[in-house]
């Protein structure tokens, strides 16, 4: 029986970029795997939900805006309740090229780790994002090493694969705001194995990053605190 894979796409106002992402995803055929696409519409103000339904995907419409973490967790809950073997988080803005998905699944197959992160920094290829943002990512690399002892270069990457154990944990405990770096602390404390694999990312096709201007300072402080407390908290 083929392994069931759920591709979770958390979306907030992504009607512009979603069609091409979904179209590309639907072209992918991986032998031995059965792919299903789930769009989690985080109470978008545009037609994200309608666009997603047109493409024949599973659509979950959240009744209130939960933020990216809450949306991803909803997808993870769906994966748990419907007995999926793997869940892959992929952004709806086109930054994560769907064809890189195969790389992550293959990497998981070879190494058997619980979480695979698609990283844009392992090989300096493709979209590398701005200087300030790279500086921030460097900082989180250091912070992550401090709290988890892991070398994760792209800890803010939202391109991730979860296996059954990881799904089980993320379904119960997943931060809602800016969840990526913090969740790594949660996962490593739970004893999950985390590895990165190099992927090539593109600049976003549409929409705007949720982290801009003063927001980035808030982001740094909030995430640092959250990581510290996740580290201290008994799991």
């Amino acid at each position, binding site marked *: 029986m083929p392994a069931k894979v759920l591709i979770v796409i958390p979306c907030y106002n992504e009607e512009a970029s979603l069609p091409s992402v979904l179209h590309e995803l639907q072209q992918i055929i991986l032998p031995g795997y059965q792919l299903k696409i789930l769009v*989690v519409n985080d109470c978008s103000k545009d037609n994200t939900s309608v666009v997603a339904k047109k493409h024949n995907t*599973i*659509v*979950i*419409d*959240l*009744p*209130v805006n*939960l933020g990216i973490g*809450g949306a991803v*967790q*909803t997808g993870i*809950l*769906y994966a748990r*309740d419907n007995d999926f073997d793997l869940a892959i988080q992929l952004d709806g803005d086109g930054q994560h090229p769907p064809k890189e998905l195969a790389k992550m699944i293959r990497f998981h197959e070879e190494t058997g780790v619980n979480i695979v992160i698609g990283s844009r920094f392992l090989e300096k290829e493709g979209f590398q994002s701005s200087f300030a943002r790279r500086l921030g990512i460097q900082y989180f690399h250091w912070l992550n090493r401090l709290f988890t002892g892991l070398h994760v270069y792209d800890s803010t990457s939202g391109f991730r694969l979860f296996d059954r154990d990881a799904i089980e944990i993320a379904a119960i405990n997943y931060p*809602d705001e800016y969840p990526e770096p913090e969740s790594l602390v949660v996962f490593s404390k739970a004893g999950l194995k985390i590895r990165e694999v190099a992927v090539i990312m593109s600049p976003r096709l549409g929409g705007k990053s949720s982290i801009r201007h003063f927001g980035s300072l808030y982001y740094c402080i909030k995430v640092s605190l959250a990581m510290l407390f996740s580290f201290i908290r008994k799991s």
Partner: protein
Amino acid sequence: MAKIQIITIAANILFILYISRLIIKGKLREEYAIVWVICTVFLMLFSFWRNGLEVLARITGVYQAPNLVFTGFIFAILIYLLHLSVVASKLHNDNKKLAQEISLLKEQFNKHLDKKE
């Protein structure tokens, strides 16, 4: 009894009546009302016992009695604000869980409907 005492006592009674009304109408839960009731009890105590403040200030070593009021009340307000943040955080978490459950159920429900058709 001094004029100011009568005014504060009257204001206090009105305040207690208003809190009771809110509780009776179901607009205020009892657990949040406790703090307000305790506050009015304190205010009532000191409106009857005018020297009380001076006595307390002497006991705690505060030079000017009004400063004791400010310090005490600001501290109490901060604690209460913290308590409200805790309540808000809990509501936030509960809301998130409810929203997730509802959206998942809705999806399941629609799937069943589609199958029947």
